[in-house]
Structures are given as structure tokens and as C-alpha cells.
């Protein structure tokens, strides 16, 4: 008998605000966080827009000496984890520290620092590479730092499955607790690569929106005029907890995680198969794991990147899995407001899915004025909806053809 797992803490650092209240309030009021790139001079780039985290102050979280040796993706992760931890009301003791795991996801690691030190290497030579270069850039450093700051000594892992990394982290954390490897897990995703190499690289793939003259409407999932995703950054962390542990301490429970699916497309480095079959099998696998019928799903937090290909294929995948029920459930892409946070997306969107079940409010897909003909489902366009959903899933699909889906349920005894 697998153990039940619930969400008891949420911490968010997003382009919509630092802190869950700020982000959630903007999200359900349809206020986006996309603007011109300010991190570097993007004038030579095809895409010059991004959703940047604007209100994060490193001094609120770190001593001066720590800051210079922590890349932004690590800083965001630590801050989000500490917000989530505080939100959960848990404390680390000698009795529980070996039962607390940290499993995070991250697509790229410290690419901005790699750029910086590649230049140092070329101009000044190898002797000028800081000893903190490697600890700044490796993608598992968020999990490492979070465990050091909390003093948690359970499993410590990192998923680097591109844009599915956050969801795979949450799914793995769920499984680790269900199978008894730990009782509590800090999990989610983090990313910060708004830098010339990443923007240039995604641009070269024609993956990014070039709606530079109107950033606020650039992320328009499922709309006929969508032209790519908008690069974004931040971190979303959740505290997952074994139900009995949470019950014993009277914890506030946002939602229960009941299923996890993971599949490969075995098709292409970046494109999904035309019928979205890898995503479809992933949703089906997650629902089987959750032991719920497809008809019981009320809400899907879609991968919904705003690329022509994803939104079409994801819609087809949803139709494959849900059949007639596909047109009855609510779907939204919160990336319409947050942009695409890459490896952080699954963490953020798992948190949004839990908050949707907790509050009964489904966030909208903004900028969806003219749904594309091939996108003909209910994407909760423009304004949020009060609907009290009982069961929800969150989809993430990553380059390399990797898919992840988590299933959550409104908590009841």
C-alpha cells in the first residue's frame, strides 16, 4: 500500500512577484509579467522580450559573500524553498532531518556564468577562472544549497529534463514519499537563463516569440496569432508531506498528489509528434497511477507554451485521452502570464494546480482572443473562473521528447 502524499507548503519567485500571494493575485487577475529584456542588450537578437523577475532582492536572503557565488537560478531556488518551508510550518529536528529530501528540477544550470567565464578564459587565460565557477553552474546546486540551509539529510536529487524538469522533480518527490524513502520533500523547479546564449539559441530554433513591439500580448497560447514562447525565469517550490505526518501536526493541506506519469516521444530533439502521442500516453499513465477515470478530471494546467506546434499537439493529445470529456473540462496556460520558465515551469505550475484546487479559482489563459481552428477546447480565455475543481493535472513536455504529468486532487479525508 503506497502512502498518501499532500502539499503543505508553497513558495514562489516569479515574474509576477516574489511570494505566493503576490504571484497568485496577479495570476487570477490576468496580469502578465512580460516586457523588454533588461538583463543584457538584446538589440541584435530576433526575440527581445522576456518575463524577468523584478522584485527579488538578494540582500533579503543572503550575506554579501554568499551572493557573488550563487547564480540567480540558485538564489531563486533557495528563496522559493525557504518561503515554502516557512509556509508549511515544519521545522527540522534531529528526529526528522534524515527523513527530509530535496528533489528539484532545472533545465540548464548556470549558463550566464558559463558565458561570463568563457570570456574570462579567452581574454585572460585559465588561471583567472574562479574556484567557484563549477559550484555556481552545476544544475544540482539548488538541491545542495537547500539541504545545507535546512539541515535536511534525506535524498538529494536533481532532474535536468529541460522544460519538464520541474514536473519530473515533483513526480519523483511524490514517489519517494509514497514509497517511504522520506516523509517530507522540498521539490519544484528553478531557472534563470535570460542571457545572450540562451535567447540566441532558442531564437535559432525559431522557438521564441518575436512580438517585440507588444511584449504584453506575446505569450498567447492556443491563439491563432501565437508565434512562439517567451523566455522567463524564477522558481516554484512545494513542500510535499506524507499524509499522516501532516495530519499529526495539523498542517494546512493545499491538495493531495495522487498520480505521476512519465513517457518519451522517441521522435525528435525538439518537436512533439504530430498527434501528441507521447504527451497523451503520459497523461493516461498518470491517470492510471492515480486510479481515477479521465472523466473525473476537471482542470488541466497545460504545457501551453504558445508555440504553433505545442499547442496544436497538446490539444490533440488531450482529445486522445479524454475523448468527449475533452470539451467539458477546463484547460488553461498560465504561461500566457508567466512566460515559459523552462525547468522551473513544472514547479510553478504544480504550485498553481495545487492553489487552483485549494481556492476553487481557475487562472485564465490571457491574450486568447481568437483561438486557432485546431485549438477548439475550453482554455478559460481572458478571465479567471470560479469552478471548484476536484481533480486536476499539470502537463510538462521537454526537448529531447520527455514528458511529465502530475495528478492532484482537492484534499478530503
Amino acid at each position, binding site marked *: 500500500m503506497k502512502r498518501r502524499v499532500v502539499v503543505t507548503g508553497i513558495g514562489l519567485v516569479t515574474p509576477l512577484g516574489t511570494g505566493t500571494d503576490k504571484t497568485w493575485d496577479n495570476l487570477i487577475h490576468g496580469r502578465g509579467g512580460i516586457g523588454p529584456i533588461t538583463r543584457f542588450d538584446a538589440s541584435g537578437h530576433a526575440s527581445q522580450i522576456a518575463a524577468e523577475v523584478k522584485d527579488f532582492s538578494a540582500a533579503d536572503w543572503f*550575506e*554579501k*559573500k554568499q551572493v557573488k557565488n550563487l547564480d540567480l537560478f540558485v538564489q531563486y531556488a533557495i528563496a522559493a524553498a525557504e518561503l515554502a518551508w516557512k509556509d508549511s510550518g515544519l521545522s527540522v529536528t534531529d528526529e526528522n532531518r534524515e527523513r527530509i529530501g530535496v528533489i528539484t528540477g532545472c533545465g540548464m544550470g548556470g549558463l550566464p556564468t558559463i558565458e561570463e567565464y568563457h570570456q574570462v578564459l579567452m581574454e585572460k587565460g585559465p*588561471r*583567472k577562472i*574562479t*574556484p*567557484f565557477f563549477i*559550484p555556481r553552474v552545476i544544475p544540482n546546486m539548488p538541491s545542495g544549497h537547500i539541504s545545507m540551509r535546512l539541515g535536511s539529510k534525506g535524498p538529494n536529487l536533481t532532474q535536468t529534463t529541460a522544460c519538464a524538469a520541474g514536473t519530473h522533480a515533483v513526480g519523483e518527490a511524490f514517489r519517494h514519499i509514497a514509497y517511504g524513502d522520506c516523509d517530507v520533500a522540498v521539490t519544484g523547479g528553478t531557472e534563470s537563463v535570460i542571457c545572450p546564449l540562451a535567447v540566441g539559441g532558442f531564437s535559432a530554433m525559431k522557438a521564441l516569440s518575436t512580438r517585440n513591439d507588444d511584449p504584453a500580448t506575446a505569450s498567447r497560447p492556443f491563439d491563432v496569432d501565437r508565434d512562439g514562447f517567451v523566455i522567463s525565469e524564477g522558481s516554484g517550490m512545494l513542500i510535499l508531506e506524507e499524509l499522516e505526518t501532516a495530519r499529526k501536526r495539523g498542517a494546512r493541506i493545499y491538495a493531495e498528489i495522487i498520480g505521476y506519469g512519465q513517457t518519451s516521444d522517441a521522435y525528435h530533439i525538439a518537436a512533439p509528434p504530430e498527434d501528441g502521442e507521447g504527451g497523451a500516453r503520459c497523461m493516461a499513465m498518470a491517470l492510471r497511477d492515480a486510479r481515477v477515470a479521465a472523466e473525473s478530471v476537471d482542470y488541466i494546467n497545460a504545457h501551453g507554451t504558445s508555440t504553433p506546434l505545442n499547442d496544436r499537439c497538446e490539444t490533440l493529445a488531450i482529445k486522445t485521452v479524454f475523448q468527449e470529456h475533452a470539451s467539458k473540462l477546463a484547460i488553461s496556460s498560465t504561461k500566457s502570464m508567466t512566460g515559459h520558465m523552462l525547468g522551473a515551469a513544472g514547479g510553478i505550475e504544480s504550485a498553481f494546480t495545487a492553489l487552483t484546487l485549494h481556492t476553487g479559482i481557475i487562472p485564465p489563459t490571457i491574450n486568447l482572443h481568437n483561438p486557432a481552428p485546431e485549438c477548439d477546447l475550453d482554455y478559460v480565455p481572458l478571465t479567471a473562473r470560479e469552478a471548484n475543481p476536484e481533480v486536476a493535472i499539470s502537463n510538462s513536455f521537454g526537448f529531447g521528447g520527455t514528458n511529465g504529468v502530475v495528478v492532484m486532487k482537492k484534499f478530503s479525508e
Partner: protein
Amino acid sequence: MAVEAKMIDIIVEQLSVDKEKVVPAASFVDDLGADSLDLVELIMAMEEEFDVEIPDEEAEKITTVQNAIDFVAKIQE
């Protein structure tokens, strides 16, 4: 004197410690909280600031503020 003042500034900056703590006898590891990676970076900052090259075997001997000042003063003579 110029070397000493500059050296103290570098140490304060690199190790993020209060200036009052950076006394000649202070040990980087025991008194100023540096770990082995901090020491490597500190040596790199000294090389940059004083435009000198400090070989690893020399760097290993620089464990206190006074060691560092003496080393740079000697090399600059």
C-alpha cells in the same frame, strides 16, 4: 604602507569581513572564516590587484594577513 592598505581592502571585499577583524595576525581560515575555495579566490584577487603571479607552492604559505603583505612587499622590491 600602500600594500598593506590595499591588501586589507581586498581581504574585506573577498571574504566579506569587517575591516576591524583584518589585523596582521589574523588567519584567513581560523579568524576570517575562509574555506579552501575562498583562499584560491583571494590569491587570484591579490594577483590581479598587485599584478603579480603567485605560484601554488607560495600561495600555500600565505595563511595570515601579515604573510600576504610580506609576500607582495617582497616580490615588489
